């Protein structure tokens, strides 16, 4: 996208007016996501990812999406398994970090159902968002050069006019729509994140449409009392959706840890297409409000356990561990 076109988009489609953007997640997904679009998820791996947003895209049967696989773990796995995503720009996908490889994601790529349309590194991916966030066509960086990762990255190597050394130019990336799950946000979209922000400051600025899911909608005054905590200001935001526990089964830093029992269930069921279907029929398709999902995965009792686990008051268990 030409940076002047990006400027026109931001000037025309993003409002600088403080307006109430609270809406049901179903409405946000139907208004701001579309088939064939380019999706990016905030967070990292299974950390602070808006699973609520993903489940809603599954229910609305979005199709043919391209996803930014910027350390995408459970999100991309579910999106691929359910047929929502058919192309991946990959920095890290098809794996579950310490839990091993993703049966569903691998099956789809090895069987040709999903195409990997680009390869790049994690730093390169977030610098694509950073370039976009700066209104620049590209950002120079000293990664990927000399490798096959570079060849599949759409980046270019040029001679730096200052040092004479080769330098990699990483093109800006403006996702069509992005979801970012946050700790708190006011009704206008002023959002605060506790812990590492990963690349969400840059992604929020790069995304053409941004849906914020939040653990809680808080009064504007709470944001204004601590403006240094704000990572995303309201004029980047298109929708605010209150979804407590909205990144389950992932880890919401300082609130609740990842639900390894649930991850083990997914990793086991997703070994087969039938298992995927059973999972989705159990946890996604027939489920209305997110609270129903929370009840299905163990309700407040489970959430209490995950809170204690996060506070290190419970020992971690790893039911997926082979040994």
């Amino acid at each position, binding site marked *: 996208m030409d940076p002047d076109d990006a400027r026109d988009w931001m000037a025309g489609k993003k409002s600088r007016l403080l307006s109430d953007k609270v809406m049901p997640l179903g409405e946000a997904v139907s208004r701001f996501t579309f088939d064939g679009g380019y999706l990016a998820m905030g967070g990292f791996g299974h950390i602070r990812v808006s699973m609520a947003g993903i489940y809603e895209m599954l229910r609305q049967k979005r199709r043919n999406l391209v996803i930014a696989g910027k350390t995408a773990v459970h999100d991309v796995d579910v999106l691929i398994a359910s047929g929502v995503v058919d192309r991946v720009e990959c920095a890290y996908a098809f794996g579950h970090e310490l839990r091993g490889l993703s049966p569903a994601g691998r099956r789809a790529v090895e069987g040709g159902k999903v195409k990997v349309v680009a390869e790049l590194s994690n*730093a390169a991916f977030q610098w694509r968002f950073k370039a976009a966030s700066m209104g620049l066509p590209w950002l120079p960086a000293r990664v990927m050069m000399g490798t096959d990762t570079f060849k599949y990255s759409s980046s270019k190597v040029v001679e730096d006019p200052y040092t004479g050394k*080769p330098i990699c130019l990483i093109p800006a990336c403006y996702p069509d729509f992005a979801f970012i799950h946050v700790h708190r946000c006011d009704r206008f979209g002023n959002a605060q994140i506790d812990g590492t922000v990963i690349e969400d400051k840059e992604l929020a600025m790069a995304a053409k449409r941004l849906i914020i899911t939040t653990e809680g909608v808080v009064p504007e005054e709470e944001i204004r009392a601590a403006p240094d905590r704000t990572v995303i200001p309201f004029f980047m935001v298109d929708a605010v959706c209150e979804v407590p526990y909205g990144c389950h089964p992932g880890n919401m830093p300082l609130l609740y840890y990842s639900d390894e029992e649930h991850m083990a269930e997914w990793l086991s069921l997703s070994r087969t297409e039938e298992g995927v279907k059973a999972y989705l029929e159990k946890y996604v398709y027939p489920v209305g409000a997110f609270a129903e999902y929370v009840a299905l995965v163990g309700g407040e009792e489970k959430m209490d356990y995950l809170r204690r686990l996060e506070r290190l008051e419970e020992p971690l268990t790893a039911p997926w561990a082979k040994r």
Partner: protein
Amino acid sequence: MTMMAYNPAELMACAASRVLEDGRSVFVGTGLPIIASMLAQRTHAPNLLVVFEAGGIGPKIPAIPISVGDSRTFHRAVMAASMDYVMSCAQLGHIDYGFLGAAQIDQYGNLNTTCIGPHDQPKTRLPGSGGANDLGSLCHRTIVLMRQDTRKFVERLDYLTTPGYLSGPGARERAGLPRNTGPYRIITQLGVMGFDAESKRMTLVSTHPGVTVKDVVDNTGFKLIIPDVVPTTDMPSDEELRLLREELDPIKIVIG
């Protein structure tokens, strides 16, 4: 002298831990690298600065994280930053060591974590670079932890995800990568490897107890440089094994 029996993962963790010097910084991934870094902090390198790609800097890691982004990676850290921040730190030259794993490695330490078979129709699809290419490009010294056999130590990679010394001496600099960087140690279940200063080809540094030079050569799919004298890797101490089993990985997620 160790009295206790140990397994290959424990030996690899100890060997990796000992490479890390006190007062240095290390960029780590999940699994063995984090175990090795935590072990180093609890033994000879209490001032080892641990950095995670999601933004955690200098945490007091309370328990093994499942993800390099989870809340354990910035527990009582000096800073909970962003990926841009920590990757910029690496690009700026602040990160001494980077820990990597791989499915394939060649004689110049180039790594494949992307696919086995052709990229567009892979036999096995692997996760991709993640932060590996960044660490392999930007850290002063990279350390690779992986299994050694002829399917993994190969003449020719199926895909070059992360740069080692590329095609040999001077190739990294010619490609534009920061000078004086590259792979430093390869630690496997059989031994420790390094790189010849002139040719940048992989060189045997030590064999693990009970492993012969022939075992290493037989499990390497390219010509490894063998020095005249090959020492034996130090065995894990009882204290290292106690730390690994009782404190660092009590539920045996990484160390079986």
